[in-house]
Every structure is written in C-alpha cells, then in structure tokens.
C-alpha cells in the first residue's frame, strides 16, 4: 500500500487533483534513495497525517 493510497484511505474526500502539480495542496516525493515515499509539503485543509496514523492504515 503506497503512501498515496494510505492518505486517500484516511481522507476519502481527497481526489487526485489534490496531489496534482502545480495546484495540488499535497506534494508527495520519492528520492529513489531506498527510503520510499514521503510527504514533501502539505497545505491541504485537512491536517497532515502523523507517522503513527499512516502506520496504522493497512489493507
């Protein structure tokens, strides 16, 4: 389950447009360094999820 999938599951009202540059309010990034996807910036009206919240979301 990707970070994007987890965020969508946490906030079902979000759409792909919320992540779409340059107008999206959520920017996810992966630096291809083995550390995986992460939240680069978050200006969405929903609060930025914590690491604990994300970890608790499973399939």
């Amino acid at each position, binding site marked *: 389950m*990707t970070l*994007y999938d987890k965020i969508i599951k946490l906030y079902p009202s979000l759409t*792909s447009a919320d992540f779409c*540059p*340059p107008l999206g309010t959520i920017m*996810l990034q*992966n630096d291809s360094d083995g550390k995986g996807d992460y939240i*680069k910036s978050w200006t969405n009206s929903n609060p930025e999820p914590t690491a604990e919240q994300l970890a608790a979301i499973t399939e």
Partner: protein
Amino acid sequence: MASSINASTSAGLVSTADLSGVLQLQSNGTTIATISSTGVQTNVGAPAFSAYQSSAQTLSSATYTKLQFQTKEFDTNSNFDAVTNYRFTPTVAGYYQVNGQFSVGSSATSMSPAIYKNGSIYKSGNNSTSNQNTATVSCIVYLNGSTDYIEFYGYLASGQALNATASATYFQAAMVRSA
C-alpha cells in the same frame, strides 16, 4: 600555425607571431581560445551528458519520484552519476541547457516532469490532464561548477512502469555559456 599569447607559469607572458591571422590564447602552453576571422572558439571543457533509463522504474501514484538513468550515451566530463544519485554536478560554472523526457507504456491521465536544482523544483514541464504517454521538460539553469546539481523527477497521477529505452526516457544537459 597561429600567433599566440601564453601565460606561462615559468616565463610569465610569452607571445609569438606569424602571418596566419589566427590568435591563440594559452594558459601555460595549453590553448584555451582561438580567435580567427570566423569568430572565437573556446576549448575549455564544456560539460555535456546524455543518459537514459535502461532498467524500467515503477512510479507510485501521485508522487514526484526521482528518475533513474543507468546508461550513459556520453558524459564528456564524467559529471553525471548513473549509479547512485542520478544527478548531474558539472565541474565548470556556467549556464546549461537541460532536456528531459519520460514515457509510459499505457497512456496516463496526468504526468508531469520537473528539473530539480539542489533538491528543489526548478522548472516543471507540461502537465496535461488528458491521456498521454510522454512528458517533456527543457530549461536553462545556472550551475556554479562545484556544489550545484540537477536531477529529473517525474509525476504520474496513476503509478505505473516507465518505458525504459534510449528514445523514451532520457536526461541531457550541456553548457551553453560559461559563467
């Protein structure tokens, strides 16, 4: 032959003359620039590279991901890291023309390419919301010749594997003007 002005480390300024109408500017015997009736030719090592993705990378949905370019077509100054960081860190300060493209096998609803400078978005390319399978970006960027570097990131609304061929997913840069 040519006339020359040489800044020698042992003899100071040394000049020679002939009737060629050509003037060479030299640093300790090495010709840096040649001036003739056709203009100025510089011989300073102007870095240029071209690399492409030869091992398909799968991007997550809606996530700007650094693209990996494992195979070099050329790298005149050995300034592109095709093994670990997939970044171009030129050792000559100047202005660089940058081109990048990535491609997917199945059409994507939204895809966006971006050139990152020193870890942040510098310029982003086309981001169409209609079905497409190729996204390109080009820009000119100043790089200081020591610490500045550029990378190429790609965004797909719906994640999938990239088309890993030399003509489909590539990253290039070349110096167009010295600092």
